[in-house]
């Protein structure tokens, strides 16, 4: 019979599976609140330093948490009153222009097909355009309904997130200490060590990716506005959100502006070039300046692991799954490695 205690890898896998199961059960039970909780932790990572700064200036824990809460409420009010109507307006404009846009795309695809036929190449472009057009027309039909549903969800989130963040900033460290102090003496230091490594990596990653996403949204919005592309803020916001997904996100972010640039009533190669140029320029800024400065080495995962992880998480949990894939994988990697090393040493001793 295999003795689990003598096999560090097996033992660490058993403990890790127990962690994973407990995490899964918690996620299942908290499913309706999962998005506000994830967002609150992200905001805690983002605004934690501000709370620390306020405490250095003499504010106590509760006062600093309250000031951060007020700031979050202010940001939410500005977001709801300025950004939401602007995005909704641009979405509605885009929706009314959709039929014309698809018409232009159909004409363009026919022209390409004719051009290819002249060169003796038989290629039915409708095999590509039809599914995209069907999907998009379905989407455009439901867009207003979906956006209104999204706004209701967002309203709940907008109320809950600042509240959760306030309590996290005020009580998180105390609750964490109480939870980790429950560990038995034999694994007390190992537990704290794994916690320390996980939070260090996650803090850098979350702060970095949110900052990176914000920078991308601004750069792309300004770029599209200057090039004269339709709905620049909406497209910039989409690009910023998609940038939360490493490797795959930036590629997906290229699709909507190119479709809009291709679908203009008069074919404008300059607009297409400019749209692609803005995205490439944003990616260069991102990869040369932002990534090395804010998230370099935040997670030591192989690109293939990242891509496969994103696809699997995306398949199971949708867009949110694609965003949380990297933090979950990085955390699992640190926990498993830490457990394996710690337990291996136990046996050697």
């Amino acid at each position, binding site marked *: 019979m295999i003795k689990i205690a003598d096999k560090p890898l097996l033992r660490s896998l058993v403990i890790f599976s127990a962690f994973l199961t407990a995490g899964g059960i918690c996620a299942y039970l908290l499913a309706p609140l999962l998005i506000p909780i994830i967002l609150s932790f992200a905001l805690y990572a983002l605004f934690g330093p501000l709370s*620390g700064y306020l405490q250095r200036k003499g504010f106590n824990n509760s006062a600093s948490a309250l000031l951060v809460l007020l700031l979050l409420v202010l940001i939410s009010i500005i977001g709801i009153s300025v950004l939401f109507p602007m995005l909704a307006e641009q979405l509605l404009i885009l929706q009314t222009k959709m039929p014309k846009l698809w018409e232009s795309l159909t004409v363009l695809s026919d022209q390409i097909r004719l051009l290819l036929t002249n060169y003796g190449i038989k290629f039915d472009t409708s095999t590509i355009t039809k599914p995209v057009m069907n999907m998009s027309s379905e989407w455009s039909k439901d867009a207003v309904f979906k956006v209104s549903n999204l706004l209701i969800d967002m309203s709940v989130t907008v109320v809950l997130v600042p509240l959760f963040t306030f309590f996290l900033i005020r009580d998180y460290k105390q609750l964490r200490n109480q939870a980790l102090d429950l560990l038995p003496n034999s694994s*007390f*230091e190992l537990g704290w060590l794994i916690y320390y490594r996980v939070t260090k990596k996650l803090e850098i990653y979350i702060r970095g990716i949110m900052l990176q996403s914000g920078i991308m949204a601004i750069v792309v919005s300004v770029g599209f506005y200057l090039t004269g592309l339709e709905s620049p803020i909406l497209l910039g916001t989409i690009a910023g959100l998609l940038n939360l997904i490493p490797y795959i996100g930036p590629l997906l972010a290229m699709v909507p502006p190119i479709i809009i640039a291709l679908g203009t009533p008069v074919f404008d190669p300059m607009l297409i070039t400019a749209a692609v140029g803005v995205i490439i320029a944003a990616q260069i800024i991102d990869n040369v300046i932002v990534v090395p400065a804010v998230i370099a080495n935040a997670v030591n995962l192989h690109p293939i692991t990242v891509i496969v992880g994103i696809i699997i998480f995306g398949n199971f949990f949708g867009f949110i799954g694609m965003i949380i894939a990297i933090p979950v994988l990085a955390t699992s990697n640190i926990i498993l490695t830490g457990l394996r090393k710690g337990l291996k040493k136990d046996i050697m*001793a």
Partner: protein
Amino acid sequence: MDNNNKHPLWENIFRRKDDRITEICRLWSSTPLFKRIPQLYIRRLVKNMHPRFYKTNESIFTTGDIGAGAAIIKSGEINIMAGNNVLANLKAGDFFGEVSLVVDEPRTADAIASTDCELIFFLRTDLEEWVHSSPKQGAQLMANISRVLAGRLRHANDMLTEKNNSSSL
């Protein structure tokens, strides 16, 4: 003395309820780690430290463990050992493991409780959070840690020199 016989009428209501924290503060303040750091700051830090209780002969850590921080003995005694040799016997008020406050290095000896004891752990996480909230005092603590480590290094050098001299004679 039986605590159950205490009468609330005769209790000193002016005594601070957090006597325990005051006692731990006093223990840490008397170590070179907290030299020139005001009590107020030490108190703030001590509130987040981690008390642990060990039974006689229970292992606190073993050689090769990656340490998460330092600890001070509040009560009881512990032995620092290399194999079967007792390198030091530490008593209440003594501290150990300060190297782990600054680096991810493995422990270089075993620590075993020689009596039932209570240790107060000061972890690297606590130190980093404290440095962020009180940078000036954090810098002083870092300087103190450096002095303690330099002192330990000098002591080890002296012992080695003495050992070499005696073996050459």
